[in-house]
Each structure stands twice: as structure tokens, then as C-alpha cells.
């Protein structure tokens, strides 16, 4: 996983966020790099949503 994707995961672990909040947190990252990293985060299949539609990292099962 790229450092950028790891950073996105860490931000989502800290608290639920809208996609736009993740974008705002990385204003200098090239759009394409951000989309690639988001694809990596999606690939983890750990993304969930809270009641406001914000992304969050789902709690590990078990």
C-alpha cells in the first residue's frame, strides 16, 4: 500500500470523514495520485459508512 493510501486509512481510523474532507486534507497531492490511493483504500474492503454517509474504517471482525 502506498504511503498516501496508508495516510488516508489512518485519517479514517481517527474519525469518520466525507470524501471531500480527505481531499481537503491533501491539497497539494495530484488529483490522479489521490484517486489511485483511494482505489487502494477501497481494495482493503474495510471501508464502512456512518449514519451521515461519512467513510470510516470498519471495526475488525471477531
Amino acid at each position: 500500500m502506498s504511503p498516501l493510501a496508508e495516510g488516508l486509512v489512518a485519517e479514517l481510523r481517527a474519525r469518520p470523514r466525507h470524501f471531500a474532507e480527505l481531499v481537503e486534507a491533501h491539497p497539494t497531492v495530484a488529483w490522479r495520485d489521490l484517486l489511485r490511493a483511494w482505489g487502494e483504500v477501497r481494495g482493503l474492503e474495510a471501508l464502512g459508512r456512518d449514519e451521515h454517509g461519512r467513510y470510516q474504517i470498519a471495526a475488525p471482525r471477531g
Partner: protein
Amino acid sequence: MKQGFRDVLRVLEDAGELRRIKKAVDPRHLSALAAQAKEATFFETVEGYPGWRVAGALVSTRKRLARAMGCAEADIARRFEDGIRRPIDARLVDAGACQEVVWQGDDVDLTAIPIPLMHDKDGGPYISATMVVSKDPEYGRNVGSYRLMYRTPRETGIDLVSSSDMRRYYQRALDAGRPLEIAVAVGVHPYEMLAASYKAPIDVDEYAIAGGLHGAPVELVRCKTVDLEVPADAELVLEGELLPIGWTADEGPFGEFSHITGDVKWNPIFRVRCITHRRDPIFYMLQMPWENDWLAAPVIEAAGLQALRIASVEPVAIRAPVGGCCYWTLVASIKKRPGEGKNALLALLSVAEVKLAIVTDDDIDIYDPDDLDWAMTFRVQADHDVLIVPGARGKHIDPSVRAWSLGKGGLPTTAKLGIDATIPEGVPREQYERLRYFARDAVRLEDYL
């Protein structure tokens, strides 16, 4: 010859209705900039996307939609009716500009397309200007418009919640345990978009409706990897399949046509296996909600005209105002005979999700809000001329129906309101004679300037 997407850009530019932006723009900012412009916007340079340009907000006003349709603003519904009455079959051609560049295999990468983030609560970047083609072994070809949310370099979400022919095709494919192949054309003429958003009977080819609107056949090319056909002059085409996973993947929220953010939905996933585009592609960013609303206007207005005629009421003009999202409100003027103000209301309130209808006489300019207010002030007695129909079908996205209180699968109802702003029966027309300025035809202001 049929007009294309680029012809619309030219028509708008010639009319001073398109603004070119030469400075490089980050895709994060495309939508916000387009929203600030009074004109349609054309971004000539997109940061990180050499060779791509982006056009947006092309038909985000009634005036620009009418320009794209080549008619007067008051005539968009009749222009649409004329087109759907005379469908023209599409024509298959050997090659098209939409396939000048082909990405397949490892080259397939949605991040190479400048997909914008539009609203602050959207679930991701969205492709909003889609014309989605699918086929069913029994029912044949279908064309619709469905938003796509970026997920990964090869996958998007697709909103397939509402009832539609393609939803039915997908359900049938799902029942058979197979994916549904689709192709998505982006950057086509508004006539193709109108045909795609029109709920045609399942056996009617939307490409033929687009042909009827153009007055010439839509030229199609065969896709590279799926058994489907797309407009040859499209800017961009995505080919692939809806995975047979049902409605299981999160999609949304998205800034909806109601001008409100919708909910997270559960939808299928579109896996892209091939991308084709023009050598010098223009990505069409359909600016929500305005373009979505205005592309609905001719359809809902035409439905209103048809409903009035079925009710034996003679319509003069009809308008679906953007304040009602060109969907929930219809205003019509009619040539009224006694009782027809109410008949007209009953007819208009029967159209789809229309929940507010206003009817005036033909001396009222329904495009002039002051004239309309005047009619509603002096021709309406609320105890006689207001009609309320409770318990009609509503739509989840209307907050006033309180859909959240219904539980999963609950269907909302709504009250419908009709206002008869025609001259009341028994009141002489002379009572409404307008003021006239003395000597108004004898002098001209220009002669005194």
C-alpha cells in the same frame, strides 16, 4: 446532418453563452468554478491531464437548453414532442471518433480521466453526463442515464435503485447468475441525453427517439469488447459489466437533482474493461443539479401537454420551473371554457411526481413571475380555487414526506396542491382589463434619448 456535442459548444460560444478558461484548473475545482460562471464553461487545461479538456454547465439554464435544441424557450416541450413522434432508426457505421484511442487490458485506468469532485458531501468523484447502453436477450437494447461514482481505477458505483428498464435487465441477468454488459458514452448531444432520460416504453429504441429529435439518424459504432453500440461521435466511452452482486455496494451520497444531498445507497458495481475516446477528448461534466433539472424539463412539460389534451383542455403554454427542479411543479396557461381550470389541475396533478400545479388563462405570461403572482392574487379565492389531493405517491428525496419514518422499503405519500388562477366563473373578463398608458403608441422613448 446530425449535430454533435461539439456543435452545441459552438452554438453556445457564438451566442456568447460559453466562457473559455485558459488557466490550468485542478479537477477538484472544476465544479465550483463552473457554478460561479454565468455562462457554460470550457476548461482548456486541466492540471495533471494533458490532452483533456472539460466542458460543463452547457444546458444549466432554460435559455441554453433552448439554444441547444434550436428553438424558442417556450417551445422546448413541443420540440421534444415533435421529435418523439417521428423516431428515426439509428445507423451503424464502421468507425467513429469515439474510438480513435483505445485502452484495454492493463491500460484501463479511470484515474487517467479528469473525473471531478462536485459537492462537499459526495461519496467520491462522479461521472454525471452518462448515456448507458445495455441489452436484454428478450427486450433488446436500452439506453438510460445513470450516475457513476469512482471507486477504483477499474470500478465505479452506479445508481440503479430507481425503477428503470436497465434495472429490470440487471435483475434478469442477476437471476441468471451472469453480469450485465454495459457501455457508457460521455459527451454526446443533449438530444441523446434527453432520449436517455425519457422513460420510453421498453420496446422503443431511445437512439431512434434521439434520431427523431435530430431529424437524422444517430450514427453508432460497435463497442470493442461488449456486444453493444454507442454514438460514434461521443467524446469518451467506458465498456464493461455490472457485476452480478446485486445491490450490495455503497454508492453516494450525491448532490441530487432536488438540490439536496441524497443518502448512501446500495448498488451494483460497474467493472470497466475497455476505455475508448477521441484523440483530443472533452470530458463533459454535467453540472448538478441545474443541467439534470433542465434536461428533465422538456420531458415533464410534454407529459403535461399530453395530459391536458387527454382532458380535452387546450394548452397555450407550459413551464416546469427550476425551483420545482423541473419535476415537481407545472405551470400552464390554457384557453379556458367554464370548469376547465379545475379539469386542467386534475390533469397536471396526474403527471408523475408533480405536486404543485398552477393554471392560468392565456392572457397571463407564465414565464413572467410578476404576471403569475398577479393572476394568483386577483383570480384566486382560496376557498374555491385551491385543490388539495392527499395521499398521492411521493418521492423519498422530498424531505417533507418524512421518508425516514417509514422504515426500510416503505413508500412515501404526498399531498398534491393545485391552484386555479384562471378568471373565476361569473366574474366578467372586463374586471381584469389592464392599465394602458395614454398615448403609448404615439411616442417613442428612443426619439428622446
